[in-house]
């Protein structure tokens, strides 16, 4: 963690800003659509954690791989999954990324390197190692990133995969979004030793802790990790300290297990607000410019919802299609 990172050039700054706002607004819109009775699924909102996804994806190429968990809308959007198709997927429409068959916890789009969210905690971690192995054997320098939570850190599959990636020197970057809770369970209770990044030393690999509310701190660590991965110097852990603003999912009231003060503390360090302030302060963009970005995002979201609304339901035949390639 570094105190203050210098701001990047204007276009990068605006693109990071845009990335974060896109996620925030997508989540808020999906939430509202759900409240209005549309079947968007039991969304695990990523609001509050935008900087992690955007910071991590900043140094990824389209052909790099990302694997997510149950809370993955931000990963998908940051990796470039189409917003319209995502919205259609949430609503279970035929035009969705997954033809409406996966939903919020399983969004995937291989064309942009998003190899899938996954509803089982820890389950995607080994899969990421396989993607990195495949890149290595195919002789490319693609890297694979897998996101998991502070709760996910205690699944056995993570341990096995850290070891495997280390001995095989795979280009996997293990990103822990430590948002302090797994459902209602605080990380202080569940995580022996208190740090996911420090567990790296057990495997002889590099682990870094970053401020997950600062997109530049996240991306700085990511740049180092990607360089190592592409150079064949093996895997890394990045633990991003972050916070989810809402409950675990729509029906969860987080004030049953955390204080309003704590929430305020994090909201006061909001990743978008602070980054926006710096853009303006350092004159990389004007308030109007940023408003234009916001407006165009909102417009895209209107289009996405319209697209999803107007899209057809999957054909009943889809129930039994895609179980196999051939059977």
């Amino acid at each position, binding site marked *: 963690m570094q105190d203050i990172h210098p701001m990047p050039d204007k276009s990068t700054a605006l693109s990071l800003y845009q990335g974060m706002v896109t996620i925030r607004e997508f989540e808020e819109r999906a939430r509202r659509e759900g409240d209005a009775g549309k079947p968007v699924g039991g969304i695990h909102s990523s609001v509050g954690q935008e900087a992690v996804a955007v910071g991590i994806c900043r140094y990824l190429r389209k052909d790099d791989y990302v694997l997510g968990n149950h809370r993955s809308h931000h990963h998908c959007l940051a990796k470039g999954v189409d917003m319209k198709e995502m919205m259609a997927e949430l609503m279970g429409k035929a035009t969705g990324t997954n033809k409406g068959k996966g939903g919020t916890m399983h969004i995937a789009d291989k064309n942009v390197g998003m190899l899938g969210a996954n*509803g089982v905690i820890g389950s995607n971690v080994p899969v990421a190692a396989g993607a990195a192995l495949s890149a290595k054997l195919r002789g490319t320098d693609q890297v694979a990133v897998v996101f998991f939570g502070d709760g996910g850190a205690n699944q056995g599959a993570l341990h096995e995969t850290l070891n495997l990636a280390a001995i095989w020197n795979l280009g996997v970057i293990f990103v822990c979004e430590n948002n302090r809770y797994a459902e209602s369970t605080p990380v202080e209770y569940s995580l022996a030793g208190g740090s996911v990044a420090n567990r790296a030393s057990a495997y002889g690999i590099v682990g870094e802790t970053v401020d997950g509310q600062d997109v530049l701190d996240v991306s700085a660590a990511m740049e180092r990790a990607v360089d190592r991965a592409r150079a064949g110097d093996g895997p890394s852990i990045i633990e991003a300290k972050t916070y989810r603003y809402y409950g675990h999912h729509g029906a969860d009231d987080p004030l049953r297990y955390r204080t309003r003060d704590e929430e305020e503390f994090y909201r006061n360090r909001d990743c978008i607000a602070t980054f926006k302030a710096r853009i303006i302060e350092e004159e990389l963009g004007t308030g109007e410019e940023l408003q234009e970005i916001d407006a165009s995002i909102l417009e895209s979201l209107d289009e996405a919802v319209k697209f999803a609304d107007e899209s057809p339901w999957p054909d009943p035949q889809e129930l039994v299609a895609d179980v196999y390639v051939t059977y």
Partner: protein
Amino acid sequence: MTTTESKATERSRISFVQSINEAITQEMERDPTVIVMGEDVAGAPGKKDQGFEDAWGGVFKLTKGLIGKFGPQRVLDTPISEAGFIGAGVGAAATGLRPIVELMFVGFYGVCADQITNNAAKMHYMFGGKVTLPLTIITNTGTGAGAAAQHSETLYSIFTHFPGLKCVVPSDAYTAKGLMTAAIRDDDPVIIFLHKLLLGRTRAGLRPSEEYAVPEEPYIVPIGKANVVREGEDLTMIGIGYTTGLCLQAAEALQQQGVNAEVIDLLSLSPMDEETILESVKKTRRAVIVDEDYPRCSVASDISALIAEQAFDYLDAPPKRVTPPHSPVPYSIMLERLFAPTKEKVIQAASEVLEA
């Protein structure tokens, strides 16, 4: 009289969840060796001094209130380490406790199957009967919540496959309490499968209200016994948990057409009450089996094979299974509703069996 009546009314409104919760509470009161472990079974662990406790009480509130009564020594929130804590349940059961562990959704079995099928199921046998494993596993199953392929499975068939495990599936608040109590008191490992769509239901969901009030005092629904929940002569419909309700609804509809269906609420998959099934089918000569688990190598297959092999000479028609297709659970609500058995599909199957 009024007090008794209103008491009965109240008890008849007890939901499936409350009923499980009551069974656990009563057994924990009765037996200090009963403990509960699982993710967020209380919630906000370690935060009591900050004024937080029992924030969740389990993802479906099955264990709500327990920590207040029994404290964090006996109600243990766990990290997301199912192999770890279910394995710990095995070790605790082998050394004098009666642990209840929650596997939040049955589809997560894959991260801890080794503890369930290699240790819990086999230790008693491998050790020559010298160690017992009074472990209860609670798990949640079923479609109907738009939760897609990994969070909507049924899967009791694969546990029924393993010798050494007992598997039970309550169908309403009454059987939920009784089977839960029986499971906790049982000296073998028992898995109790709870269907999401039943959890909020009162007993009236399955059978008419007050006369079927859930008793307040502890009782047991014996493991291994099926219930004939509706008598009839024209065909036998066999339901499991949630699908028993579908069978009853279908039976009502068929009654309009003059068909008198018998409905069996299976309740227990391992051991399975073959006698009740066979007796009924020998009487009605026709059988429809309704199951939400995947069709291949399933409890439905087992029952169909049982009937075919043991009641062959009595049958007027081949048994028929109503199950999902051989396909994962789709997300889209428009597809999901085509997946599982419905009342209409049961009626359709019954008609086919009656015509055969």
